[in-house]
């Protein structure tokens, strides 16, 4: 039963080997999807390219359906998975800063690393920026320590919050995603002319 390393079915020493292999596939998929270009990544904001939303929502659906079935078949112990805790204010502030960084910088951390790997200088500078940002956060940590740990609701699940099963939420999310896919296809037709020729 998974997670294999945590459940002791694979020796702990393999954890880093697995991390490396998974990282390689992560990088290949992101680069092949076009996430190594900030032009493609920011396209959804202006309506000329919805790759980010399509890839992102499809990946979430596949992983959710997979986890629901794996739990049903007894292949995975859901309770052992890492559930990120709901520190409401910290998430909202962090999300807003990240959203601004997304629109201004044209990458997020994972995509910038994939883009830096193929030689995008703007991505390398973005990665440098991330490290400067972490340094600023860490040095100022005593100032925002309280905010960082305020309103913690722990590893709250959306299914518990709404009082529905994982299967039902997956179904609802699939409907939301399909409506979004349909909407983006319509918008893409309207705004496709806005795409400019970049120097890549």
């Amino acid at each position, binding site marked *: 039963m998974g*997670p294999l*390393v945590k459940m002791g079915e*694979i020796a702990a020493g393999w*954890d*880093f080997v697995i*991390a490396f292999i998974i990282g390689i596939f*992560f*990088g*290949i998929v*992101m*680069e092949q999807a076009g996430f*190594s270009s900030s032009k493609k990544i920011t396209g959804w904001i*202006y309506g000329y390219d919805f*790759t980010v939303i399509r*890839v*992102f929502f*499809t990946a*979430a*659906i596949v*992983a*959710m359906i*997979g986890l629901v079935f794996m739990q049903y078949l007894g292949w995975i112990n859901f309770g052992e998975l*890492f*559930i*990120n805790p*709901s*520190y409401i204010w910290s*998430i*909202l*502030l*962090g999300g807003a*800063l*990240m*959203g*601004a*960084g*997304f*629109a201004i910088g*044209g*990458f*997020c*951390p*994972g995509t910038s*690393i*994939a883009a830096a790997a*193929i030689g995008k*200088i*703007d*991505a390398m*500078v*973005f990665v440098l*920026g991330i*490290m400067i940002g*972490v*340094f600023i*956060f860490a040095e100022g940590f005593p100032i925002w320590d309280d905010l960082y740990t305020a309103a913690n609701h722990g590893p*709250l699940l*959306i299914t518990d919050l709404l009082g529905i099963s994982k299967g039902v939420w997956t179904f609802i999310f699939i409907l939301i995603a399909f409506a979004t896919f349909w909407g983006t296809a319509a918008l893409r037709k309207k705004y496709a002319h806005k795409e400019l020729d*970049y120097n*890549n």
Partner: protein
Amino acid sequence: MEKMKYMNPYLAGFFLGLVLLAAFYFSAEGLGGSGAPKRLVVGAVEAVAPNHAYNNEFYNSYTQNGERNPLSNWVVVQVVGLLAGGFLSGTFSGRLKLVTEHSPKITAKRRLYMALIGGILFGIGSQFGRGCTSGAALSGMAVFSAAGYLTLIAIFGTAFIVGKFVKKLWI
């Protein structure tokens, strides 16, 4: 070498979902991009000023007064793989090129300044958010975490609004 087209986004999303599922199945971890740069910073600060790192609660949570190597971590190894995977993919598809990609409406220099500012904002934001678009939003959504969905809405909602003010950077 002729540049190849990008993969169909739904197919890429399907594969990304499988990679994410594999990460959970083997290691209970989701995918992440911001964990490695964070730990590099922690490691560098510890190397230069160990006492400073041990006296700061944030750094110390990763170093444990020098008892733990902040770089010996799943997400760090995963990002090394990510670099290798991106490079392999770029080589295979003929996209390896040292270039500053920018809109014809702005100069390369301006693009680099904006990339730096965006990176800094993401660096700070990913600490408050306890993860980035991959680590907090996508991985969180897959495990039905309420935090994952809140992060998604906060990132994409703000990006959409801010995007309206920085339109000239892109189109």
